[in-house]
């Protein structure tokens, strides 16, 4: 019984734009997972019809509210490895590790220059996600009220595309769907892009990510090929980071909070020099850290380009382009 209709799908402007940026910078088609939560629609105080608003508010168990079709799915974060078939096989079978799908509400697929219509693979993947009982999770508000009553399995589907014909204007198109298991169809849903600003202050809490940091090992399987294992490097990186932290702590220890009291009063001028020294050291550290991040990003990029070159070789693209 977790096939409740969604009223709309909400996503914050920054999340949507970073999602668009991610899929448009990937070399080919890409797909990935969407995380977030599903909530019964909060009764709107702006409603013209007081009876319906109060009815929704009065209903203690949200089951009745959601049965009335007032569920909203909110996308708070996403994971996009930047390649097609990142979490399923060509038949639509899922390749997810089970500890890794906390708050998975759906998925997205991006296909450059194609019709904005779900494909054969989209359907099969969506059907797999929706029918996997282990992926179902309780709807946020009803978790306490009616234990296990209403669940929601990942049914949100966002489809991104660019127009099939070349055009001078760079265009992104997207459509949102909810997959319905009863009818086995994609039902179009409206996307509510929530921007930040006073009008949207009510939504402030909605967009804090609530999924744990997504797993990174998703790409180590064979089909996405030629990904070299960077585990060893990552470990040493972590060790280095830990060492840096120790050093920062060391610096801070030189200046315990108790000393702060001396900042006030006549002797304050003597301490500014010490304080400045500490800030300088910390800035140097931050600078070094930033440098490390930059260097590792460059390495990742280099690796990506290398992979892409290998893939092009397998596909025989080089011969086509050069010949």
């Amino acid at each position: 019984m977790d096939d409740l209709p969604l009223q709309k799908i909400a996503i914050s402007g920054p999340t949507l734009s970073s999602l668009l940026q991610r899929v448009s910078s990937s070399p080919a088609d890409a797909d990935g997972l969407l995380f977030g939560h599903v909530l019964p629609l909060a009764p709107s105080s702006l409603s013209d019809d007081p009876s319906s608003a109060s009815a929704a508010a009065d209903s203690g168990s949200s089951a009745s509210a959601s049965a009335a079709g007032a569920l909203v799915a909110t996308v708070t974060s996403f994971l996009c490895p930047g390649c097609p078939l990142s979490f399923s096989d060509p038949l639509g079978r899922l390749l997810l590790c089970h500890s890794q799908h906390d708050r998975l509400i759906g998925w997205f697929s991006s296909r450059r220059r194609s019709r904005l219509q779900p494909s054969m693979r989209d359907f099969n993947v969506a059907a797999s996600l929706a029918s996997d009982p282990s992926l179902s999770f309780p709807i946020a508000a009803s978790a306490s009220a009616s234990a296990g009553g209403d669940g929601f399995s990942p049914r949100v589907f966002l489809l991104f595309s660019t127009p099939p014909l070349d055009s001078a204007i760079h265009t992104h198109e997207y459509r949102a769907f909810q997959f319905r298991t009863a009818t086995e169809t994609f039902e179009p849903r409206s996307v509510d892009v929530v921007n930040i600003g006073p009008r949207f202050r009510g939504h402030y809490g909605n967009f804090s990510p609530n999924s744990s940091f997504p797993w990174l090992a998703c790409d180590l399987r064979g089909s996405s090929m030629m990904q070299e294992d960077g585990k060893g490097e990552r470990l040493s990186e972590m060790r280095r980071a830990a060492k840096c932290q120790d050093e920062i702590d060391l610096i801070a220890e030189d200046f315990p909070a108790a000393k702060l009291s001396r900042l006030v009063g006549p002797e304050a001028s003597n301490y500014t020099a010490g304080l400045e020294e500490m800030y300088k050291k910390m800035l140097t550290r931050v600078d070094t850290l930033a440098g490390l991040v930059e260097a590792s990003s460059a390495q990742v990029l280099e690796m990506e380009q290398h992979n892409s070159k290998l893939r092009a070789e397998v596909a025989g693209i080089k011969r086509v382009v050069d010949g």
Partner: protein
Amino acid sequence: MASDCFPPFIAAQLNYLVHQSTLGVKVENVWSGSKSYPGVLDRFTLLIPYCLDYIKWDVLYNAEFPLCPPDVIFAPEDEHFHPFRLRSREGGNEMEGAKNSLSDWNHKDPTRLCALIQELRDEYTNYQRRRAGEVDDDRLTFEISTILSREGIEMHISSGLDKPQEVKFAVPLVDMNINKMVHGCPWRHLQKIHLQVVYPVGKKYVSAASAPRLKLVSTPELKALFSVDDVKLPSWVDGMCMAEYLPHLEESLQGQIMEAVALIDIRRHFIEALAPVFGRPVEADPVFCRKATVLIASGVFTFLVHLFIPTQFPRQQPALMLQSSQHFNSQGAPIKSSLLTDYPWSPRWDASQMVERILEFLVDESLNFKRYCNEAQLQP
């Protein structure tokens, strides 16, 4: 980017599909979905023959991910067509029934795309058949139940916003191998004749059901031997059903095809009769004997005569076209006459007499044609 073309692995699969398979698939549109290599094509629209019409499917590869099998987007009106649907086992997330052309995809195997399209088309046939079976119309339900056993029958439901719903049938007719009947047959594909039957989906409570729309359709190459447009369809009596109608039609068609095959020899005979009068033909169609070209000299004026022999020969006379070998138009193409069919003719003459009469006609006509050529050449 040098030129737009497919990477080798896609080119091999697409070529195999278009040129090696019997499906008769056409490629309508090709484009690239790659960001880094915008000139490398990896997606295309296929036109797949189905139920005497074409269905359009977009096939999307990823040139940069050669190991990924392609994805397919079906036509917008087929939103309920879901092939390769996985069924989940009770109480688990293990999927069953996952054995199709997409499992263990091998991008180096050129036959894979063809196998995929073939399998999807079979699924589509079943899907349309299921949909036609669900239509709430008693007559249609009856027709489908009686005709379903016919091999190769295809159905299609069409409905538009402003069009009434219709069920289209493509019924393969005449269970004979026409290819084998023609000596030295050049056809690569098996020639077939289909009867297209279009039923309007009846509104309930309408007692008098109208006759379906009927049309004979043949593979295009068959025209060289036999034109289905010349066939007069038996009339559809009220209250008739397909199972009653088809045997008569098939019987008469069979007879007409046999006759058409026999007519090849009569045409061959005619072409052979050209030789004593006009000399050996410069060119002749040896298989269907539909075309022959002879060279004629009238004084110094030499010209070719093309004879186009209709399938209805000798009932219909050949059409003649004269082509000068000395006069050319401003584009450098030889000057030709229009098709001439208005000359004395009788199907009862024997072949040599037919040739004699054509010669007589040409003796007169050559003068007209020479004048015509001279005038045409003088014009700037």
